[in-house]
Structure formats: structure tokens, C-alpha cells
């Protein structure tokens, strides 16, 4: 079993129900988030568009947080979830530095690292993660990536625009996005600055602009 998440970005309307349900389910302190929805505005008036992107732990197969944790407080569960052992964490914050997705925080109450666990405690008793249940448009799709009949596997097979965040880092995330765009996942990529790169000179023509 390899549990994964998929977000159909065309369905997400930025209502934040997932973020609120996550905080309620997991007692996430006020200043921290396990799941949040980012807004990205694209274009110039009147031709504009807003993207909503839910962000949570990617439960990478090659997780940098698991690798850097000096005491194995971050560890893999047999179902692929990257879990946190709060009693073992020494609070060095290395995992926060290693995670390229900004998905880990230090809980001010327990002083231990914490993050989205795909609601491992709910999964254990056969329930869906809280954010999946709360989503009014079923934008969050959760299931077993190894089961070809699961909804998430079918979604991955049927869509050709499957994306992950920062694929170049080779973290192998198990959190996918479909029907999105590059700027939604990486807003900085919308602007390639002028200047010299290793092999080319990037220069934009005036009538095209810098984006």
C-alpha cells in the first residue's frame, strides 16, 4: 500500500474548509498550519485569473526530512506515510530546513516538529482524512496509489497534466495536482529574469515583455 493525495485544482474554490477542518481535527496551534491554501493571481486587469493551491506535506518517497532527522523521529509507515514521533523529536528543526515544501513546523505546545500525517489516526480506523471529508467540491482525492482500481489511480491514469511541486529535487512526492498550471505551483517561474545564464543570454524583446 502506498497512500497518496491528488488535488484537482479546477475544482478547488479556495473556501479553506480543508484548512479549517485540518486545524480542528489535529489541534493545530493558531500560528501554525499543516494544510493551507495559497492564492496566486495571474495576469493584468481585465484579463486576470486566480489560482487556489492547497499545500500540505507531500509524503515524499525520498523524503529529505526523514533523511536529516538525527533521531528518526520522522519515519516512514508501511503505508508510505511520513510520520512524526513527538516523544523522540529533539526539536533541532533540521527537518524544517530540509523540507523544500515548507510543510513542517515546531508545535509551540509540544516543542516538537509536526506536520500533516494524512490523518494517520483516522486512516487507522478506516476513516478518510479530515480535509477530504470537509471539501465541498471533492477536489481532494485520497487513496492507494498501488491499487489500480482506486479513485486516485484512475485519476492519475486519465489525466495527462499531472504535476508535483519541485520535481527537480527528486524527492518523489506522493502528492499530485491535476488541471493546474506551472505558475500555480511555482509563481516564481512566471518571471525569467534577464541576464546571463551559464550558456545563454536571456534578453526580452520590448513588445513581448519580461514574463
Amino acid at each position: 500500500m502506498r497512500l497518496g493525495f491528488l488535488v484537482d485544482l479546477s475544482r478547488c474554490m479556495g473556501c479553506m474548509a480543508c484548512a479549517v477542518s485540518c486545524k480542528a481535527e489535529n489541534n493545530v496551534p493558531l500560528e501554525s498550519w499543516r494544510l493551507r491554501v495559497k492564492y496566486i493571481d495571474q495576469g493584468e486587469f481585465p484579463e486576470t485569473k486566480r489560482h487556489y493551491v492547497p499545500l500540505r506535506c507531500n509524503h515524499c518517497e525520498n523524503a529529505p526530512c526523514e533523511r536529516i532527522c538525527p533521531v528518526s523521529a520522522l519515519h516512514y509507515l508501511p503505508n508510505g506515510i511520513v510520520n512524526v514521533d513527538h516523544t523522540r523529536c529533539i526539536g533541532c528543526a533540521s527537518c524544517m530546513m530540509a523540507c523544500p515544501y515548507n510543510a513542517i513546523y515546531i508545535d509551540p505546545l509540544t516543542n516538537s516538529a509536526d506536520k500533516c500525517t494524512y490523518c494517520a489516526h483516522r486512516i487507522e480506523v478506516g476513516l478518510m482524512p479530515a480535509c477530504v471529508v470537509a471539501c465541498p467540491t471533492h477536489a481532494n482525492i485520497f487513496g492507494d496509489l498501488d491499487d489500480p482500481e482506486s479513485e486516485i489511480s484512475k485519476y492519475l491514469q486519465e489525466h495527462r497534466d499531472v504535476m508535483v511541486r519541485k520535481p527537480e529535487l527528486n524527492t518523489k512526492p506522493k502528492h499530485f495536482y491535476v488541471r493546474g498550471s506551472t505558475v500555480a505551483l511555482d509563481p516564481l517561474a512566471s518571471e525569467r529574469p534577464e541576464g546571463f545564464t551559464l550558456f545563454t543570454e536571456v534578453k526580452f524583446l520590448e513588445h513581448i515583455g519580461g514574463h
Partner: protein
Amino acid sequence: MLGAEVTFDVALPKVVWGWLVSTNMWAKSISTGAFFVGLYFIKKYPDQDAFFRKWLPILGLIFIGITLLVTILDLHHMFRFWKIFLFAHFTSAVTLGAWVVSAYVLILLIAFWSWVTGNRKLFDRVVIPGFIFAFFSTIYTAGILGQSTGREVWIFSAEMISMLLSATLAGSAAYLLIGSIYGSLNEKMKKELGYILFGSAGLLAAMFIGELVFAKMHSEYAEKVVEILAFGEVAPWFWGGMFLAFIVPMVLVGIATEKRKYEYALLGSISALVGLWLIKHAWLIAPQSLPLS
């Protein structure tokens, strides 16, 4: 449709590792630098090595002590520090560092005992393992920065060389400082320490400037970090560090060695040590100033 920007985000706190970690790297540079530079002089001038046989363990122990103290203070669960030895996870550079530094402390204690008892052979027997543990104690932080996948300007190979040069810079500056205060170094040694400091400062400055020019080519993220470092909120730390750690010491130590005015070397050493902290702090916090989301 043109461009895109984030209009709403509640990214987690920016700076995770702050001044305690900068101080860790700075103090470790002095400790291991004192070992490297001290060892060089002990081997090169075996008849005039009393100064280095005394100050190598003293400087080494004081500054590795500061390193360990700030490391533990930086932990959110400082009383669980022992778990790093009991539940060691050896894929982590943090774990490897803890073990290697522990071994290095042991070597320094032997060196200290060797100086106290006057048993020179005792220290001579642990010179090779001492060098190995000092080397890995210097570079393990580069491993931690390299494992910080999200911060693209930290690249292990560059950080490793930078940390070794920081060590020789800090070690030579510390000996020049102590030597100037106690007046127990001969002119040849002062001159040689000056050359080590001058060379380390020059190479380290070239590395930082090289990173400024080339790091931004890695990605849009790295480009933004370089912008923050050179022109943004971190710029005063960075350029202050560049000036105090490299330019001032190179000029003052250059004058001191050429004109034989060693009071300039004292000022140059202080400047190098202050500047090294500033530049390490700037380099540490700049990549943390951007939300990774």
C-alpha cells in the same frame, strides 16, 4: 495573461535557524582552525612549538565548548539531546556531526592533558586521528546545509571548502590575536600566520563573490536569495561581513607583515573574527528569508 504573484499565503515562520546556529559555525571555525593551524606550526617548528602546544587545546576546548553550548540551547527539547546517541540515525549529517565532534573533544582533552603534564608524546600519538576528527568536525555543518534540500544556494562542495577556509582564517586570526597580546610569537611565525590569514581571506572572499555571480543561475529561487543577500534585508550583514572579514584583515595584515608593524595584525585579527560571524549569519539567514511555498 502576463505574470503571476502570490496574493495570499500563510507561510510558516521564516528564519528557523538564527544567531545561535551562526555562533555555532563561527565558534567551530575558531576551534578547528586553531587545531589545523596549530598543528601546522607544531610540525614545522618542533623546537619552538610551546606556544601552540599550549593554545591549541585551550582555544580548541573553549570554542568547541561554545559550539556545543549554543547547539544545545538551540534545541526546542534541549534535555533530549542524549537521544542523538541512543537513537542515532546515520543518514543525517546532524548525527554524524554529533559523533565526530564528541571524538574531537576527546582528542582536545588529550591535547590539554599533554600540555598540563608536559607529556609531548601523548599529543603526538593522537595527531592523525585528531586531524581527521577536526576535519570532519569542520565540514559536517556543510553536510547539514547540503541536506537542507529546499535552500538551493547551499551546496555541499562549496560549503565544505568555505568552512575549511573559514577555519584557517579564524585559527590564524585567533593565534595572531593571542600572540599579539602575550607577545610570545617570533616574527617568522607572525609573518606566516599573516600569510595564512591573508590567503584564507582572499580565497574565501573570492568564493562568496563567485556565489553571488553564479548561484543566481541555478533557479529563480536562488536568484531571489542572491537579491536578498546583496540588496535586501540581509545586505548590511553580508557587506559588513565582507568588509570586516576579508578586506580590512587583508589590508591590515598585509601592512603588518610587510612593514613589520604587528599592532596592525591585532586589529586585522579582531576584524576578521567579527566579520566572519557577520558573513556566516548573513549566509545562514538569507535563504530562510524566502517562503518555500
